[in-house]
């Protein structure tokens, strides 16, 4: 979708605050929200649906809420929409019925769970790859209203296949709770192809793009 999240190349944001070198979480609530996100949620949520729900925040909320408040909104909305909890519970913070939490996880168990969560998104290809390394390709000019991973700034652009990664789960379908596999490629674009004459001709940008985002150039 052409949402506010699609920030690549947008102008007017000003200087970057490069000073952040402090603790991993800058506030206590950020830490708690991250921990909640790692331990709760809907059983059938996909990473793509999670990202899409963030993208579906109205632009003013997206721009004005801090990063982990956008995650909070995914949990608030997602938990209600999945029937895990109710609107009244989210707004009131009181459970209609109290239940006993599962056994406490120790630090060692958490570290082991993180280590084992290197979930692969590679899938078995059902057909052979259309494109080969060094081949010229062009990206689609139009996106669609759902979740997709072809940013606006790289639409209708000509680049070259750098690497073929085999088939990976397609996010456009994952965001609908469905599985589809497509070949994934790293595609390299010259900076002037994306940005015109203001760009430095020495520079390049790569994107990881699924086969259906591309046509032969």
């Amino acid at each position, binding site marked *: 979708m052409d949402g506010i999240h699609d920030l690549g190349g947008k102008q007017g944001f000003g200087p970057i605050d490069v000073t952040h070198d402090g603790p991993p979480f800058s506030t206590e609530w950020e*830490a*708690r929200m991250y921990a909640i996100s790692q331990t709760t949620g809907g059983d059938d949520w996909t990473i793509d649906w999670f990202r899409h729900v963030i993208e579906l925040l109205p632009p003013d909320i997206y721009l004005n809420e801090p990063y982990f408040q956008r995650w909070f909104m995914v949990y608030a909305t997602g938990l209600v929409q999945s029937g895990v909890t109710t*609107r009244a519970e989210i707004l009131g913070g009181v459970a209609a019925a*109290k239940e006993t939490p599962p056994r406490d996880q120790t630090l060692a168990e958490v570290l082991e769970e993180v*280590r084992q969560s290197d979930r692969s998104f590679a899938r078995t290809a059902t057909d052979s790859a259309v494109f080969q390394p060094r081949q010229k390709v062009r990206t689609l000019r139009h996106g669609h209203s759902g979740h997709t991973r072809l940013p606006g700034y790289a639409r209708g652009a000509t680049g070259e296949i750098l690497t073929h*990664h085999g088939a990976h789960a397609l*996010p456009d379908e994952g965001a609908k709770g469905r599985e589809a596999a497509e070949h994934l490629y790293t595609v390299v674009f010259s900076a002037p192809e994306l940005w015109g004459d203001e760009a430095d001709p020495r520079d390049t940008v790569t994107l990881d793009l699924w086969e259906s985002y591309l046509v032969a150039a």
Partner: protein
Amino acid sequence: MATFDADEAARLHRDLHSHLPSDPALRVKTLESLMVERGFVSEATLDAWVEAYSDHIGPKRGASVIARAWTDPAFKARLLEDAAVAIKDFGFEGSATAHLKAVENTDTRHNMVVCTLCSCYPFALLGMSPAWYKSFEYRARAVREPRKVLAEFGVSLPDGVDIRVWDSTAELRYLVIPQRPDGTKGWDEDRLAAIVTRNSMIGTDRDLDPGKA
């Protein structure tokens, strides 16, 4: 069950947001109480997750990997071949590192990583991402004017150096291998790891300082 209904999610966002307290800490506290009361997770488990990502999973992991790549050519070859497998030597695999590509800085190439669409980051290897990495400013500008962005980080590149910006649009994550600085000959891995900055592994730092060891 999730409905995967985008219109409904957008409507719920508006509805809930207009009724929620404005204080972010209060919102999260309310959610936490609810999750605990409903029996989904305990306070102690949340504490353990915070501790894991505050004190144990962080950029020191990535720095250890870089230091070994500098001292062990066979390991560096494996890291460049398949970084997701190579980091298992350390037990650093995990969240968002199943597909990992290491990209090497050279005298003529500088690599820089961004996620313009969200904030994808190799959590298990580098820990929580810095605030600037998630900022609108960095996400908007890194792909379009990387030299100006680098200048803000205090990095200026010689004329003969090109920039390759990697926009993480899939489940592939990136690790920049910075160049080993002069003046570190004979150093062991621990000493080398101490001079590898987090920013150098994302690509917003380039010339590492041996004086920092």
